[in-house]
């Protein structure tokens, strides 16, 4: 276990030459590491040094987005963060809206929060399922992936697509809430609450799980702050920080929710915090469906650009079709930053416009990329058998880190 505080000089000071250490390469095509390679130096079976080698699924999303019209970046960022598509979409649109100076109407804000919270539950269930298979429990893996389905069906009902929804556009959202959605959502939420009790019995309070995760992969509060860890992993170490509270966006200023934090910062706390966040998301979805305001789902600046056929379509089917403005969009010169709390942590966007057809600089940082220090720091001092536990507990997603 790493008792001392992280020091940047340690990277140079570790002497790993000579015959004493075994160098083990885990990945890049290994079920325990996904599309990345973890290079591990071992003394016996104690980990001495870890070097994460990423980039095997680098898809040049920044380069591509700088050479396309503004609206075409939405599908690109979605396909990078597949379990978290709505948040990537939302973060980019928030940055573009800051440049354009458009404020979406309240109903659109609530619908954005609704779809984001549904997506957060699917993302956490994905993480819990992967953690389960890493610890050798196929049951939880099957359960979690099965229980994702009702929520994905909800997304399909609302947006027309299961995963890559492209639901949020500058100025609002694309579809209004369909008939029967509220009743269906309530059924799904009640089902999930029942299932959470089952998860606690078979998985969360299971002595085998506790024995393998408690005091494994401890990240102290000071280290979590200095290493810039994000999301549930940060809050499991006891830092009270959530972008939804501290830099509110969408409907979050109006919603009543808590930010759960833990004390120990070990793998077990990182599991517990995901379960707690699912409970908070269920609470928020209920509030949103109860308080959903009436009105338009698209800002007036965009609505006025619709042609008569599109307006008729909007009134009858509650569907926003793309006006020509979207493809010829030229935001005024300037720069904008946006932060969004995704399932795995905080997405950061920095966009610079020169008033041109394409973005001049398109920079984004994903939560998995910022969670990389876990490998270099937290795994050191553990046995090799604990590496899958640590890897699974941080909910790392290689395509998201490589971008």
């Amino acid at each position, binding site marked *: 276990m790493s008792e001392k505080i992280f020091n*940047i000089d340690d*990277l140079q000071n570790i002497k790993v030459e000579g015959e004493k250490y075994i160098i083990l390469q885990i990945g890049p095509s290994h079920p325990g590491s996904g599309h990345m390679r973890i290079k591990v130096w071992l003394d016996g079976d104690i980990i001495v040094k870890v070097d994460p080698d990423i980039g095997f699924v*680098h898809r040049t999303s*920044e380069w591509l987005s700088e050479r396309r019209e503004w609206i075409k970046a939405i599908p690109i960022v979605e396909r990078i963060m597949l379990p978290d598509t709505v948040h990537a979409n939302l973060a980019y649109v928030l940055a573009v809206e800051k440049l354009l100076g458009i404020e979406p109407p309240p109903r659109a804000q609530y619908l954005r929060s609704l779809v984001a919270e549904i997506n957060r539950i699917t993302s956490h269930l994905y993480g819990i399922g992967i953690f389960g298979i890493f610890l050798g429990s196929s049951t939880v893996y099957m359960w979690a992936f099965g229980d994702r389905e009702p929520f994905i069906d909800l997304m399909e009902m609302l947006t027309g697509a299961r995963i890559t929804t492209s639901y949020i556009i500058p100025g609002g959202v694309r579809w209004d809430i369909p008939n029967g959605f509220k009743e269906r959502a309530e059924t799904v939420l009640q089902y999930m609450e029942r299932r959470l009790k089952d998860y606690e019995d078979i998985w969360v309070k299971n002595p085998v799980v506790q024995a393998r995760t408690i005091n494994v992969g401890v990240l102290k509060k000071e280290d979590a702050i200095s290493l810039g860890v994000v999301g549930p992993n940060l809050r499991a170490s006891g830092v009270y920080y959530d972008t939804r509270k501290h*830099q509110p966006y969408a409907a979050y200023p109006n919603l009543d929710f808590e930010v759960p934090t833990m004390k120990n910062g070990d793998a077990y706390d990182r599991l517990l915090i995901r379960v707690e966040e699912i409970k908070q998301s269920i609470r928020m979805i209920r509030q949103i469906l109860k308080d959903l305001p009436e009105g338009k789902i698209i800002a007036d600046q965009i609505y006025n650009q619709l042609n008569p056929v599109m307006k008729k379509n909007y009134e009858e089917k509650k569907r926003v079709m793309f006006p020509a403005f979207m493809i010829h969009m030229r935001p005024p010169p300037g720069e904008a930053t946006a932060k969004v709390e995704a399932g795995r942590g905080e997405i*950061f966007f920095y966009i610079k416009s020169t008033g041109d057809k394409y973005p001049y600089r398109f920079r984004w940082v994903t939560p998995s990329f910022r969670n990389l*220090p876990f490998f270099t720091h937290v795994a050191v001092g553990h046995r090799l058998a604990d590496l899958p536990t640590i890897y699974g507990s941080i909910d790392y997603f290689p395509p998201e880190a*490589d971008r």
Partner: protein
Amino acid sequence: MNIKDELLKISANVVIDEKKANYKIIIEDPVKIFDAASSLKNLGFDHVVSVTGVDYPDKVEVIWHVSSYSVEDLKGINLALTLPVKKPERVNQNEAQGNFASKKPPVTVPSLVKIWPSAIFNEREAFEMFGIIFEGHPDLRYLLLPEEFYETWPMRKDFTYNRVNLLKYLRCLLNE
């Protein structure tokens, strides 16, 4: 604490957009960047969100986006620490013919990893994409790019690639 006054003590060149909670400090002299970063850390900006470059025809702007986890007042602020660096002239035109993409000289700035350890992977990415050499970085290696892109700095605006040479290069790899 009035954040604006504190920032003005560090540098006279401060751009503030209160509405969007965006703050920007511009440091012209690379020598002063280390002191500026230290004083920001003492204020409470304890981690780096992103390190990136913005490429212009004559300069590269290096931006450290920092934020705070520990000070309650600063949690809502996105601060950009900006350092514009002039690009060096291209010395040897003939050297550019060998690789499939033309080689350009890198720029050099001080690394802030000693102050903010969270910048370690971000600075590696900015190095390979923009050709920004961070002096004092303990582990400045390529992170995302494969080796045929070495020293091509693909995120710069004048990046072009010669497809014929790229194919030749890939064929060489296959023959090995």
